[in-house]
């Protein structure tokens, strides 16, 4: 694709990137799911090498508009460096709806889009595995960028150099993912500090069993096992204390009929519930819980999307 072929189009490239819920239940640092909530990044026009402009609409409009600190542009430059290609400058337009720093993989959307824009503008046809390796190197872990790029539910392992991943089958059509996003920011450093430095052997065994069950249940559509599979002893009990209503909401939602599992998304504070059938009762309970704790919140009814990042050019 040569973007210069389309000088009269509103954009040269448009990248539509899904939110993700990582650390899913027992799958700490391993399992992640793409959600049907999308940031859209448009490359409006090319600029001279090293020159960038950035317009942000929606989430992060006040803090992401400086190209020098914009994560998409930083990831673009890192990818260009990895592949040894000239970093064309460009005018970027971001339509952000994924809340920032709330555990829904907002930063991963920027990393994935930056790498794919670098690949597209350079005219490379880099294989999927290598693209994902570069994304993981930039992000530092694969559990958000893998589902963000590939879509669906992914199991991913990373040893610092090599990446192994498997994409699981999609969720059924009548499965909703209700996401409650309290308007409190849990700093990454606090989320890390909240975790114990050592893990009891029994807790490790507990999580091994639950993570294996979660993957097996997902692979075979045995959704009745999700509640167990999304149980966890390594991170959720510690991180749910970091935001008002965190502990209460998990307990209240878990037992509502139709709720198949509930988990903290990423390192929080977003809480996601998988619901089969009508999501209204779970949705209302989540709203009520955060309201009772005096926390303003955003709520989304989403689905696990099998489609990952999509690049659109005026010809496509």
């Amino acid at each position, binding site marked *: 694709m040569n973007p210069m072929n389309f000088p009269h189009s*509103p954009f040269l490239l448009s990248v*539509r990137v899904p*939110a993700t819920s990582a650390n899913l239940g027992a799958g700490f640092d391993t399992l992640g799911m793409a959600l*049907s*909530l*999308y*940031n*859209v990044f*448009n490359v409006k026009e090319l600029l001279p090498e090293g020159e960038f402009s950035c317009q942000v*609409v929606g989430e992060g409009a006040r803090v992401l508009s400086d190209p020098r600190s914009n994560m998409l542009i930083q990831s673009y430059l890192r990818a260009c460096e990895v592949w040894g290609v000239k970093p064309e400058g460009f005018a970027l*337009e971001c*339509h952000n*709806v994924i809340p920032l720093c709330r555990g829904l993989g907002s930063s991963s959307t920027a990393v994935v889009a930056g790498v794919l824009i670098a690949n597209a503008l350079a005219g490379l046809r880099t294989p999927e595995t290598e693209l994902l390796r570069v994304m993981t190197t930039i992000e530092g872990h694969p559990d958000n960028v893998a589902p963000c790029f590939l879509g669906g539910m992914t199991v991913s392992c990373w040893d610092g150099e090599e990446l192994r991943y498997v994409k699981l089958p999609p969720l059924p059509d009548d499965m*909703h993912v209700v996401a409650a996003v309290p308007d409190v920011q849990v700093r990454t450093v606090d989320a890390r500090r909240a975790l114990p430095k050592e893990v009891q052997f029994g807790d490790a065994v507990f999580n091994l069993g639950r993570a294996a069950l979660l993957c097996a249940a997902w692979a075979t559509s045995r959704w009745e096992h999700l509640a167990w599979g999304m149980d966890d002893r390594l991170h959720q009990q510690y991180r749910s204390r970091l935001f008002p209503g965190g502990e209460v909401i998990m307990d209240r939602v878990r037992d509502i009929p139709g709720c198949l599992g509930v988990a903290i998304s990423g390192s929080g504070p977003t809480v996601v519930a998988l619901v089969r059938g*009508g*999501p*209204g009762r779970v*949705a*209302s309970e989540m*709203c*009520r819980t*955060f*309201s*009772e704790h*005096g926390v*303003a*919140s*955003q*709520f*989304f*009814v*989403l*689905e696990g999307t099998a489609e990952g990042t999509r690049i659109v050019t005026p010809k496509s």
Partner: protein
Amino acid sequence: MNPQNPPCAARISDVCTDYSSARITLLGVPDVPGVAARIFTALANRGVGVEMIVQNNMRGGITDIGFLVMKECLNNAVEACRQVVKAIDAQGVSFNTEIARVSLVGENLSKAIDLPAKMFSALAEAKINIEMIVSNSYDITCVVAANAAEAAAEVLRARFL
């Protein structure tokens, strides 16, 4: 005729609260003809009535469309929106059930040109955030957080009744 109270003057008769609605917002909807028709046809086909439809300003060919539905219709509304959002490539669906409507009710309210300003100022002084607004001759309604609705009603009663 009392010159202090001419027949066409605005008259406020009540302040009402209503907790029966939920707000739904379709995020990042393509700003092209026919999309709104598609959304509200899908809702109507599922028997979902809507109120207070708000479309924000276009931004780069994308817009948000928000509206209220009765809470008991939330499941049907969400399902309709989910299908449409997928079909039109919108960016997502958000909702909130912890909202309430707070209304000034009366007659000829649109004749009182400073009434909206006074109402919104009263709410602002009480640090109550307004999420949506709709007005006509018979009422001016603000959507606020459910846990702020009683305070909002008290403020408005004290100011206008």
